[in-house]
């Protein structure tokens, strides 16, 4: 039994930059699902930011709700451009349903996606540990912080408020976009939903380097 399982277990393939069909479809599925959440978050944002209006700048803490799609898509698909593609699809979907920001939603999506993408690219699409994922979330946070404090209503605020906004946007990117996406991707891998992806397969192969995911591997081999 043990031998049979090990012979079935594939070695991790050499990294290929070409997207397979399943990469494209699952990236857009994640994008579409996130887009609906973006839209709902946009509705919730108005009263939430109004509540935070008495602590100006802290509204940046809410920005992370629009940043997780890119990071999640990036770490699940693990292809160049995955973070950008997923974030853009999500932005377009929320725009299709109708947000208060109209077409600027698309521009924001592109820049936020690039923020997350650049970090993953800087690690040559080969490091998917928690630290890198958090950094990727921070990258998206920096992107949205720069956009919001220069081109939105917040551009009219005093410098101090803008600084607070920028820092809280980055913090929100790290926690909501980085940590939550990492947890979601790990959960997906554990549930076996990522069996066609390196992000789900590698978990079984090099269980030692990523102890949290090793249980799915041992489960398969320890049932003789």
């Amino acid at each position, binding site marked *: 039994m043990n031998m049979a399982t090990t012979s079935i277990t594939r070695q991790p393939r050499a990294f290929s930059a070409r997207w397979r069909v399943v990469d494209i479809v*699952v990236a857009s599925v994640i994008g579409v699902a996130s887009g609906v959440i973006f839209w709902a978050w946009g509705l919730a944002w108005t009263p939430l930011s109004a509540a935070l209006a008495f602590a100006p700048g802290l509204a940046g803490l809410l920005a992370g709700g629009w940043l997780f799609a890119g990071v999640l898509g990036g770490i699940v698909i693990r292809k160049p451009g995955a973070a950008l593609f997923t974030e853009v699809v999500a932005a377009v979907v929320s725009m299709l349903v109708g947000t208060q920001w109209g077409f600027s939603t698309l*521009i924001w999506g592109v820049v936020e996606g690039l923020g997350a993408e650049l970090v993953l690219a800087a690690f040559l699409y080969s490091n998917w540990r928690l630290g890198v994922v958090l950094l990727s979330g921070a990258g998206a946070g920096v992107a949205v912080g720069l956009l919001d404090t220069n081109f939105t209503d917040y551009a009219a605020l005093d410098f101090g408020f803008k600084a607070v906004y920028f820092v809280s946007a980055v913090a929100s990117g790290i926690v909501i976009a980085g940590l939550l996406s990492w947890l979601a991707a790990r959960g997906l891998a554990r549930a076996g939903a990522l069996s066609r992806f390196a992000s789900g397969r590698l978990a079984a192969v090099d269980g030692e380097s990523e102890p949290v995911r090793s249980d799915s591997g041992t489960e398969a081999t320890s049932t003789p």
Partner: protein
Amino acid sequence: MSLITPEIRASTIASVNPVAKLIAAILLALVLLLSIDWASALVALVLEALLLPFAGLAARQFWLRTAPLWFAAPLACLTTVLYGRDSGDLLWQAGFVSVTEGSVSLGVAIGVRILAIGLPGIVLFATTDPTDLADGLGQVLRLPSRFVIGGLAGLRLVGLFIEDWRFLALARRARGVGDSNLVSRIAGQGFSLLVLSVRRGSKLATAMEAKGFGSRRERTWARESTFGRREWTLVAIAVVIAVLAVTLAVALGTWKFVLS
């Protein structure tokens, strides 16, 4: 589902290639984003309002879809009046909150600007069928067809996701899971939906590949997407609105570049 795939009525705008709408709306949004002043935003808003009857959007759909704008504009206006960059005479002060002539005019500008940027995008998109948009992106803009069609396939699954969500709720209820509080219920159910949707996506990809999708051959298109006179007219209208808004704002001396 009704929000994602709206009932699109035959109208002048509905028959225009979505790529032209995309270009027109992005152009307007980009130009209006460059400045925070009441004049450019107001000029654009008035001109857009004049064109609204041609959009062929039913009144109910219009108010439903633009509702977020009507909430956001006054709120953003209020926030800016209270915390915006101060200048001119002081009108009212309490703690670090100060209302000045400068922040009031900024607030008005912000409110109008949100409407002017938001309305054309929402209205133009509300009259767009996602399939037409994909056809246009693939044929007119020549984006990679695998990505365009793959994206459309994902979008078409939304109806199923909504059904899944309902069934998940029923199943969890029957099992007595997650009745304790709203947050954990939504989080748990949301994650289940994510797992389901990724599985469904993988299966759909296999089915698409089995039908020959994603081969290296050049793709042919069933529905032809053309870019003709009507499309250029729409883009030209957007250019005229943008130029008029900027010219009048500069002439009135209100134009204020965001980065300066």
